[in-house]
């Protein structure tokens, strides 16, 4: 109860502070974009993040504070590519804030600025889980972050021109540090090339593509639907003679499929941070990539 009182209090204080200060109110769907926003805008923005690393970004429970945050937002920053299709359209409609509706400058969709993988050539309903927009988990390739950073800075300048100099210099600074870091990671990750891994879903496709990891099996190809006995048998048969280095999953995914596989073919279960806050050490985009690569290095044989 005390906790909820405090939350109400911070909400009220938040309302007072934001209405007096000139900071932009930003509603962010996933923690990775909040981290990028902090890099590009610092204290020029007040952000509310809708999900944490331990929540499936596809699903969200409606809470009053989410509606309040979208209603007051000058800008929303989300992944797009159908990632938030289950809740964001409802939330936008309910909040009734014209600035951040689809197609307006206050509506920033990160996935529009990158080349997406796994876009189906033909939309076949029998394929079921195929997203017509391609795989939305775009943030684990540093090239994508680089492109989204450019676009997001441009958008910030567009809606808040009075601070354009600051946004531009922060962008230049970030891109310099980011490209240095990317070079380091790519060098470090050379031994990871071809590392064989099993995965729960296609949450790490962009990471795999960037580092040339070999995702040899996907345990639950259709999210939420348990794999059939035949699918599991095929996976076991295929993996047993030559087991992968481990099975990777996100912090929000159920551990059962990993347990099942690691118990049968004796491989490591690796919970990668996936986004900011997924492990205690992943506090921003830089440490997120550091941690991810370090954990893969640990399990690489």
């Amino acid at each position, binding site marked *: *109860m005390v906790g*909820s*009182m405090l*939350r*109400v209090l911070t*909400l009220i204080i938040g309302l007072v502070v934001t209405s007096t200060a000139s900071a932009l109110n930003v509603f962010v769907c996933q923690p990775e974009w909040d981290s990028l926003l902090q890099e590009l805008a610092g204290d020029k923005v007040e952000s509310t993040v809708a999900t944490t690393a331990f929540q499936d970004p596809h699903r969200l*429970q*409606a*809470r*009053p*504070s989410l*509606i*309040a945050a979208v*209603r007051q937002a000058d800008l929303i920053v989300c992944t797009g590519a159908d990632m938030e299709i*289950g*809740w964001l359209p*409802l*939330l936008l*409609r*309910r909040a009734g804030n014209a600035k951040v509706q689809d197609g307006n400058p206050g509506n920033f969709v990160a996935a529009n600025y990158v080349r997406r993988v796994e876009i189906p050539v033909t939309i076949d*309903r*029998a394929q*079921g*889980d195929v997203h017509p927009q391609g795989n939305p988990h775009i943030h684990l390739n540093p090239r994508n972050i680089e492109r989204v950073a450019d676009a997001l800075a441009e958008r910030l300048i567009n809606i808040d021109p009075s601070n354009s100099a600051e946004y531009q210099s922060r962008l230049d600074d970030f891109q310099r540090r980011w490209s240095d870091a990317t070079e380091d990671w790519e060098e470090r990750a050379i031994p990871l090339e071809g590392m064989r891994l099993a995965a729960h879903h296609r949450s790490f496709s962009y990471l795999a593509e960037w580092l040339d990891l070999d995702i040899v099996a996907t345990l639950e190809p*259709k*999210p*939420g*639907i*348990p794999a*059939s006995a035949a699918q599991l048998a095929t996976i076991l048969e295929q993996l047993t003679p030559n087991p992968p280095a481990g099975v990777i999953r996100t912090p929000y995914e159920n551990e059962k499929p990993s347990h099942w596989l690691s118990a049968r073919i004796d491989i490591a279960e690796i919970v990668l941070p996936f986004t900011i806050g997924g492990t205690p050490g992943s506090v921003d985009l830089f440490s997120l990539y550091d941690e991810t690569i370090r954990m893969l290095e640990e399990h690489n044989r």
Partner: protein
Amino acid sequence: MNEFELSIIGPAFLASLLVLSTHVPLGTEVLRRGIIFIDLAIAQVAGLGVIAADTMGWEAEGWLVQIAAVSAALIAAYILHWTDKRWPEIQEALIGVCFILAAVTAILMLAENPHGGEHMKELLVGQILWVNFDQLLPVAIVSALVLVAWYWMRDHLQGFGFYALFAFAITASVQLVGIYLVFACLIIPAIATRHILRRGIRIVCGYGVGIVGCLAGLMISVRGDFPAGAVIVWSLAVSALMFAWLVWPMIRHKDHSAETNIG
């Protein structure tokens, strides 16, 4: 209560009033017949109808999906009406079996078609905070029709009529507020008022319990920033307890004396 809180509570409270309007009277009947899980079964079958529609490649949005959901619910209602006549002593057990069969059929169908899964999830886990005014109009019409039918022929509702009304009411309400809240609105006011002899007083008291519970739950949700549906289920339960323990003892003699006078 400020303007923002009102704008959040407004549509959600209206939605809960609409749901209560039909579910309180239907709930007393459901409790009397001892078939309390019928709402879960009917809602699950309605979800199955949506998956089937999606599998057949019908448009995912709009009224076609609603027709599929209501048709499936009506078929289930008809089957349950038939089993009620044929094997009344095991009706509740059969309703349970109907529920799990519908649930696992959904899993089997979804193995081929997860898109249907998204629609079914939308159908079963409506979220009361995301209700908009424009969603309320169709539900208001359905509720009004159900209520008229209910009061017009409640004494002749032995047959298929009761199950059919139920199918319409549940299919509409589940999409608005989700399966947990539907169950709570149906059963909790009916339990709280089960000792009241006169039907009119019982329904009025049931509405009171429901309205107090929903309003309190919404306020707590807004003030404490909790998911609204879950809080309302709890506040409905507390409202029912308060009624049964505090309010009812104070007014019970009126109900009984009225009954004696009539008798």
